[in-house]
């Protein structure tokens, strides 16, 4: 009962803060809502007993990505973040694609079969580690390669701007 209550409270938090990301007129407020939303997802991981994912979610999404977004807002636009236009003229297209994604996700969610078990999950750290270097070694390496390419690409772009 308590877990269900915690889940619905967290889900409400995630949804409200996700709405805040879109609806806030101030970019910094949006970024803060995003951080709150990420934190809510982290709490969902706790409810699922996936503590490792919780740690990584907080570290990467809350701690790093939000900070980078804030940094981006403050470095690229006017520093206050107040006068930045939040909307553009493509809201119809955006609404259509959002609706399409929602329908697709709902369809997939209702189509897929979720296994239900009462067993307490084991140590997720070991499981994830073993999976990374055995079964999922190729996707893992590809992902790291993509990250490396992105890193090099970012450096190249930054260098070009410096020469200008």
């Amino acid at each position, binding site marked *: 009962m308590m877990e269900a209550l915690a889940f619905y409270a967290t889900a409400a938090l995630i949804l409200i803060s996700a709405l805040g990301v879109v609806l806030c007129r101030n970019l*910094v407020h949006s970024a803060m809502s995003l951080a709150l939303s990420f934190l809510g997802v982290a709490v969902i991981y706790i409810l699922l007993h996936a503590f*490792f994912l919780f*740690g990584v979610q*907080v570290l990467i999404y809350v701690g790093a990505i939000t900070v980078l977004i804030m940094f981006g807002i403050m470095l690229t636009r006017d520093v206050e973040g107040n006068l930045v236009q939040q909307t553009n003229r493509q809201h119809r297209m955006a609404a259509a694609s959002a609706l399409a994604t929602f329908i697709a996700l709902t369809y997939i969610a209702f189509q897929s079969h979720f296994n239900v078990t009462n067993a307490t999950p084991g140590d997720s750290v070991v499981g994830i580690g073993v999976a990374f270097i055995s079964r999922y070694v190729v996707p893992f390496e590809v992902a790291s390669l993509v990250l490396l390419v992105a890193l090099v690409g970012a450096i190249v772009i930054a260098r070009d701007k410096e020469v200008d």
Partner: protein
Amino acid sequence: MTTATRPRVPRGIEYNLGFFVRLGLLLGVLGGIGAATLPAIPILGYGLLAHHDSITSYVAWLFGWCQHSELVSEGIYGCGQYGLPVPLFEPAVVMQRVLGLVGLGRPPKVTVDYVVAIIASLILLHFVVISVTLIIYILRKVIGYMQARLGPMRVGPKGILQTLIDAVKLLAKEDTIPGTADKVMFTLAPVVVFIPALLVYVVVPFGDSKGFIARDLNIGILYVVAMSSITVIGIILAGWASDNKYALFGAMRAAAQLVSYEVPGVLVVLGPVIMAGSLGMRDIILAQKGGVTEWFIWSPVPLVGFLVYLISSLAETNITPFDLPEAESELVSGYNVEYSGMKFGLFFLAEFANSFTVCFVAAALFLGGWYAPPVFKLAAGLTLALSVGLCWIELPFLLRWALAASALAVCLGMPDHGWGSLYWMMLKASGLQFLTMWIRATYPRVRVDQLMEFAWKGLIPISLVYLAAVGLWAAINQK
């Protein structure tokens, strides 16, 4: 200078000797007070004889931790599960007794869980507040002595009540919010900074046995790193919401600095994790059992990991050589310049709590946690002998030396299990805290470009090499 018949000890060295004696006393007192803080609350607070017929049986139970078969068999909801000292379960017992008398029977397990969680968090909150108060006082004293001045002297004997009075002052101060500030975010920022600083203490191992760690999460160190990474958001928020250019500069510097130094810090933390084969704080310490040589500070490359961790955590907690986000001479006070009253107090509290956490983590990861070096027992005896010898040479200092040496001997001879482990953990953490104070008093602030170059071109390559060495070490030692 050459004709002196009796070589006099130069003034400076004499001063230093006295200083180190004082330092020994100070560390002993700090460790002792810290060790007393945690258990004192439940011991003083809750019904002494609620569950026991006599004080002796209560004390026996207090020191016996979870081994007391009576309690375990009576089903006091498995002490090990919450890993708190058994005394903390006293309220649960009292609650059960009271409810039983009223005729409501046993409370559901969930209720007991919540009571225990609330008490644990209260204890951690008390610990943070008390330790920060002590640290601020000691910091001011230590820096005072290092800069040949007195430090706080007015309030209480030797100014010992100064921080207390300062805290009262902060609480009583008018809480101002700038007119152009973003009010909600301005109020939220200190909370965002303080809560992670407090939450980190959940996994800090204060001593041996599961009774000294609030919750031994299996992701221990990852949890510490993750929680500390939230702090940056609060700092940026504070700087942005203040609507003040100095605050914003401070916040931007903080963001750049914390993100940069997080990388070597986290990379180096992986070293002990790989060597121990676990992310749990307790497991990492347990893997360092068996003398000083087993400490992770020596393997695979001596000192490298420890130093990189120490430097990057200095940068992450904005301590002086890296205090650019709050550089007083350039930015007035950086991101917290517009804050007053307890909002400012929360920033202050969080900063010092973080600096102490870092010391605990460094002690746990690299300095063998609560394990005392076996040679210290020998050193304890030697110190006593030495003190007797010294007493003969310099008679007027007899009392002082004897006092210092016996304090030192007691400190060195402490056992490193049970309650003694609390002392050792505190001592190591306090020692590291003293080291940061020393650095704070000694080094000038680095420049922004030096700061960034040092992280990206210095620390990160070093920590990558260190990590590779750790991998090699682990591969060799596995066989």
